């Protein structure tokens, strides 16, 4: 058992409490406001929730490790779009013409490699220049988006491959393909962060970088690996999603970084690094998707949705604060 599991579980408790609140609220409100005869907490609807959480959720797992590491990645949305373009475009490249449906795994691989490289490039810049990750990836958010537009101008890149669509829409044991990938990503990153030396070092670096350096941890390469991981996961998210939808707009993935970061922070990861876990992030992702879904369910209009989502984010923080309130005798700092 990793030390401190219980205390972190308690601290990330706010998000689970909030998820339950959401479920209750939307179920009750849905009875009055929804046109659907189906209950909000319908089993199929919950399975759908899991699937719909995948695009942001898979990236959020990578963001957890990067943020625990004390960094941040604002370029994931653009990486997501680039990976999607590579996936869809490469399937039409003449060199792969003889492959038949075998082009699919090749295209997947290519997209994943590109995503990993883009992530690693951010990591390399952070490592070698010492520029803060926020700035490096803020720049990359623009630069990578520029690359997206370079591919195909303003046109969407499309390649609808029905074999691929059928695979992506398939269900195994009642779970959609995307859900499986989300669960797998969660599990793997959980394993890495809770069980492996690499993961524990990520916490150490995020917590006290100088101490980590003094202890002889190779901080630079370590951070680069984590950026490569988030690049890979952004590409994986794209691969899973665009296998099903078959076309990418050059604007796709915009604002994903903000949603992903929101999910991660709601899940209890410290912005300054050193603390956080994947299970909490999973909760954060579900909470956000539930909110979107629920507001749709009860038919809120756009301005209400914006207003409510914003206020809810703040409310969760307040709830979290109440749960973690220090005793009256504790230091007031």
């Amino acid at each position, binding site marked *: *058992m*990793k*030390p*401190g599991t219980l*205390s972190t579980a308690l601290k990330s408790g706010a998000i689970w409490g909030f998820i339950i609140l959401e479920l209750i609220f939307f179920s009750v409100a849905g009875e009055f406001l929804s046109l659907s005869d189906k209950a909000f907490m319908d089993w199929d609807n919950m399975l759908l929730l899991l699937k719909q959480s995948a695009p942001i959720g898979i990236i959020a797992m990578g963001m957890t490790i990067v943020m625990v590491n004390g960094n941040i990645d604002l370029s994931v949305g653009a990486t997501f779009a680039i990976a999607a373009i590579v996936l869809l475009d490469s399937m039409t490249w003449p060199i792969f013409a003889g492959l038949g449906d075998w082009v699919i795994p090749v295209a997947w691989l290519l997209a994943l490699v590109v995503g990993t490289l883009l992530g690693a490039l951010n990591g390399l810049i952070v490592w070698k220049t010492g520029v803060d990750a926020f700035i490096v990836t803020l720049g990359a958010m623009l630069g990578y988006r520029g690359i997206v537009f370079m591919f195909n101008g303003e046109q969407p890149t499309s390649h609808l491959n029905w074999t691929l669509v059928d695979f992506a829409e398939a269900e195994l044991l009642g779970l959609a393909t995307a859900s499986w990938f989300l669960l797998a990503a969660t599990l793997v990153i959980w394993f890495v962060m809770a*069980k*492996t*030396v*690499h993961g*524990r*070092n990520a*916490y*150490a670096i995020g*917590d*006290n970088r*100088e*101490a*980590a*350096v*003094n*202890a*002889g*941890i*190779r901080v630079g390469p370590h951070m680069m690996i984590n950026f490569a991981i988030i690049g890979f996961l952004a590409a994986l998210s794209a691969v899973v999603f665009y296998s099903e939808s078959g076309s990418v707009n050059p604007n796709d993935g915009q604002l994903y970084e903000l949603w992903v970061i929101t999910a991660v922070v709601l899940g209890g990861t410290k912005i300054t690094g*050193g*603390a956080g876990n994947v299970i909490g992030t999973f909760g954060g992702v579900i909470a956000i998707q539930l909110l979107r879904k629920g507001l749709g369910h009860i038919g809120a209009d756009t301005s209400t949705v914006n207003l409510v989502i914003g206020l809810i984010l703040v409310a969760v923080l307040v709830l979290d604060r109440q749960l973690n309130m220090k*005793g*009256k*005798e*504790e*230091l*007031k*700092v």
Partner: protein
Amino acid sequence: MTDAKPVLRLENIVKTFPGVRALDGVSFSVMPGEVHALMGENGAGKSTLMKVLGGIHQPDGGTIFMGDDAVVMAGPLEAKAKGIVFIHQELSLAEELSVAENIYLGELPTKSLGRVDWTRLSDQTNAILQKLNVGFDANTRVGDLSIANQQMVEIARALTVDAKAVIFDEPTASLTDSEKVVLFDVIADLQATNVGIIYISHRMEEIFKITDRITVLRDGQYQGTVETADSTEESVTQMMIGRTLDLSRNASHHALGDVALEVRGLSCGKHYRDVSFEVRRGEVVGFYGLVGAGRTEIAETLFGLRDPSAGQILLDGEVVRINSPADAIARGISLVPEDRKGQGLVLGMNCRDNMTLPQIDRLKAGPFVAQGAEMEIFDKYHKQLDIRTPGWKQRVGNLSGGNQQKIVIGKWLSMHPKVLIVDEPTRGIDVGSKSEIHKLLRELAAQGYAVMVISSEMPEVLHVSDRIVAMYSGRVMRTFSSEDVTEDNLIQAISGMTSEQVA
């Protein structure tokens, strides 16, 4: 010992920082099985020399030898690989991680798939912790430990690897006596296995107790190396500061004034209970106890940083509620906090601005800060406390540990408080300055200040206090006057024995 080869030899090391020549051709060597003291005033370059050795700084000139080979310590990793263990002056721990993970930071034991071998990790750690005789276990979160215990975690690192040389940079600065005993045992054990030990401290009694040789630095320059057995406190002090010190206590010849601060039945949750004492104008009251005795929490309560759960605080005979440090400051209370880096200083700010921070609202010239008045304050304490800095513009983070502490003291002295509370005021301060600070505390009392000194150093408490409050586990055990206190009855009081039990 003379025929053996040194484990480590540094020759003509030079290191400059912008505006500071921190090391100017320093040579130094350590023999296997030797405890070698490195001494010098605050800012003399001790930590810098060790950081060069530990691969944290690259020297501008000079050579490091291990055995007969010249080596380059390109980074902490290399130094570690070559068998050099560095216990840092400033705590270097990841607070969110467990004790075990911190001790083995950078070299966690692994199983297949890169997994951490938790069982092995905690077994190894607990074995070490047992040797250190500490009251926490491998899975405790480091952030939950007291500073002293965090220091013990730092020390535990020395025992994890096959070290050739271990550097202790002021390991006892935040330890109490019982933990020091454990540390000295550890050092003796290492010594027995022929490890070379470099020991930095400002505490003479320790130096003479455990070290074999002493090397002295002054202003980045090598002053010489002497056999401990052949030297005296006076001779070493002379080497360090170029003069001898008058360590006699200047007894309080002044009359005591009214009660400035009184505490009646004060309690604060689990931290301390039913504490009562009073401090008069012109009086220095020492607070002595073991780590966790609750002295710091009392100070924090008086400074408005904690709400008491019961009891009263009286200033000049009047019951007051102190809700915030601003309140406390307005009522004439100053607190020199325990943790200078975390609580005392804004490391990224310059020396002057740190020093004037608490009174920044008072130094007004029209709508602006009166920079002239600020400079005056800085200059005054710069001189009085002999702070070594290239100038007021220097980032406080770039000062040596002891000089940082002096900035904090200057910051609160300049407030001219009615009640001055100092929590471990001379932690990391060199002998010269320490006696200056002690003198200063006595003088302040003579001027009518009420002074509370919290310290874990018995000589310090005995030296400066008019009365001593002995605490154990959140309770006041006994209050001594300077006449009836002895080392023995003080130790009894703070280990929880009442006088009846002793008798």
